[in-house]
């Protein structure tokens, strides 16, 4: 029974639509759980700055607050380990998701980011067997997720030797930065067959190609509403084909249920994997319909969904 247990969400960044969707999902699902009396409280906290140090301090404050479990989307897989250890030592259950932590005492709900990168190449190899030049848009240098996805992409490119990564820029996961970086490097690049991304930069890339007056390549999308809309427009106009892949923001709710189950005394393995959310040519319309305008394609978990993931 977890009716008197309190769970906190420690979030390090709220500055993009993905994070906002994640917070909204959390709010929606946990709000219901609290009013149903499943748990006593499920408070969400966001740091003012996207910094591991600030999040570490936040976790330490949560320990003081007396939460029974802390659900973390971590700014760094390792820099929070000190604080996470303190929490574990204080008898608090720590569950991390999306941005996971490596501290062994914590639970991890991981997405195989490397696979996410690799899958892009697998898809491309299928679509264009002749291969061609690729442009890679990366995220923020020195961040775990960026490194993982990128290494997956590069591994995929090695396996499919017909593809060559002709250029690589850092877009810092921000639309305007990506657009700027792509616009700058385009003139120096040969014909680009496809753009591989980390999610969310697809629309900006398309804009940059259009501005440079170059043919639009195949751009891998990242589940944002504007990307999907653009894709749909192109699809209707000229049969444009691509795929879209990203992690669903609703995974925060899975983490919540996992924390609840652990508090409930259930046996849960420390490492769980969730599939990423992939949208293809045929289910584009369906997904577009369920995605909030200006938001991100999402999947939320119920208690039973969560139990199914854990049982797997």
């Amino acid at each position: 029974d977890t009716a008197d247990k309190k769970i906190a969400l420690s979030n390090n960044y709220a500055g993009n639509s993905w994070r906002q969707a994640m917070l909204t999902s959390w709010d929606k699902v946990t709000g219901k759980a609290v009013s149903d009396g499943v748990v006593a409280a499920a408070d969400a906290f966001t740091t003012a700055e996207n910094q591991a140090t600030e999040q570490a301090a936040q976790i330490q404050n949560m320990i003081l607050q007396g939460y029974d479990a802390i659900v973390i989307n971590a700014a760094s897989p390792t820099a929070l380990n000190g604080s996470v250890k303190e929490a574990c030592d204080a008898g608090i259950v720590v569950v991390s998701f999306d941005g996971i932590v490596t501290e062994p005492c914590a639970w991890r709900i991981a997405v195989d980011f490397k696979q996410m990168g690799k899958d892009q190449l697998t898809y491309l190899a299928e679509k264009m067997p002749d291969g061609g030049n690729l442009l890679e848009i990366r995220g923020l240098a020195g961040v775990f997720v960026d490194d993982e996805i990128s290494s997956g992409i590069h591994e995929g490119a090695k396996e499919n030797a017909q593809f060559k990564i002709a250029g690589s820029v850092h877009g810092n996961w921000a639309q305007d930065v990506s657009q700027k970086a792509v616009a700058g490097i385009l003139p120096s690049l040969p014909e680009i067959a496809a753009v591989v991304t980390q999610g969310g930069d697809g629309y900006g890339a398309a804009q940059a190609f259009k501005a440079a007056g170059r043919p639009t390549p195949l751009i891998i999308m990242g589940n944002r509403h504007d990307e999907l809309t653009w894709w749909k427009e192109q699809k209707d106009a000229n049969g444009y084909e691509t795929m879209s892949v990203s992690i669903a923001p609703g995974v925060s709710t899975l983490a919540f249920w996992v924390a609840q189950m652990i508090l409930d005394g259930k046996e849960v393995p420390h490492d769980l994997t969730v599939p990423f959310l992939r949208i293809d040519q045929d289910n584009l319309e369906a997904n577009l319909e369920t995605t909030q305008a200006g938001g991100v394609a999402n999947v939320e978990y119920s208690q039973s969904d969560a139990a199914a993931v854990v049982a797997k």
Partner: protein
Amino acid sequence: MNRLITPRMLRSALPALSFTFLLAAIFYIQPRAMSYFGLNLMLNLGVPIALATLAQMMVITVNDLDLGIGAFVGVVACIGVTWLKETPLLGVAALLGCIAIYAALGALIHLRNLPSIVVTLGMSFVWLGFAVLILPTPGGSVPDWLRAFMTLKTPYLPFAVILSILIALLVHWGLMRTAYGTIARGAGGNPRSMEQAGWSGLRIKMTMYAMAGFFGVLAGLALIGLTTSADANIALRYTLLSIAGVILGGGEFVGGRISPIGAVIGALTLTLAGSFLTFLRISPDWQIGAQGAILILVLALRALINQAERKK
């Protein structure tokens, strides 16, 4: 007029007043914080910020501003969890090299009469680049002695508090009480007159920049002692935090008017502001804003004192 309670005295007591005010508020809403354990959890991550703030203060003393200190602390952290752990000799040499680079920066800025803001901004990219090269993905591990030192359990007062007091007093003594510290501050107050009195402006600048480097190194080491590992972006926010800390502590941008004790208190106040926020439990939308509101509230005390002064 009473010579003891001058406006100057009041103003220099202001940082301490704000700090006490904030601490009292925290104790009021979260009595659990009023303990050895609580203080330690709230303040230990303030120690590296305090050290970074002191580094910033060294540069501000000679009328410059360091926009690279955050990235520098990051590079130190990366060296700390890699080379310093695996090949201590190389690690120490690299850290000394970093300090030497800082001294060289001081020389460059003085000799060519450059705006420090741009040079250190440029250096922030250089440091970040080095950090990414040294530690491409987050991780590494901290030398055991460092971890042991930063998690020392001292009697009566938490180690973080003792350390902060010691550092503040030491730097106060060095900069405010010693003969050479006077020269350094004098160079901020009236650089021309220092040269007229026969002191080398070059040497003063180099020394103060080297001191900044030294405290930056200490900040980086203290940080990884708490987090146990690092990434390149770990301390980027320290740049703004350190500037805010110095100003909050009663320092001024030009004129060599600084206060080491105030700076340490300022840094700790910024740390506490985060805790206060967590304890308040406001809606996630406004959590970031609340951070700003707290800063404003704390600083509004200054306005009160100024007003009282004007009335007199």
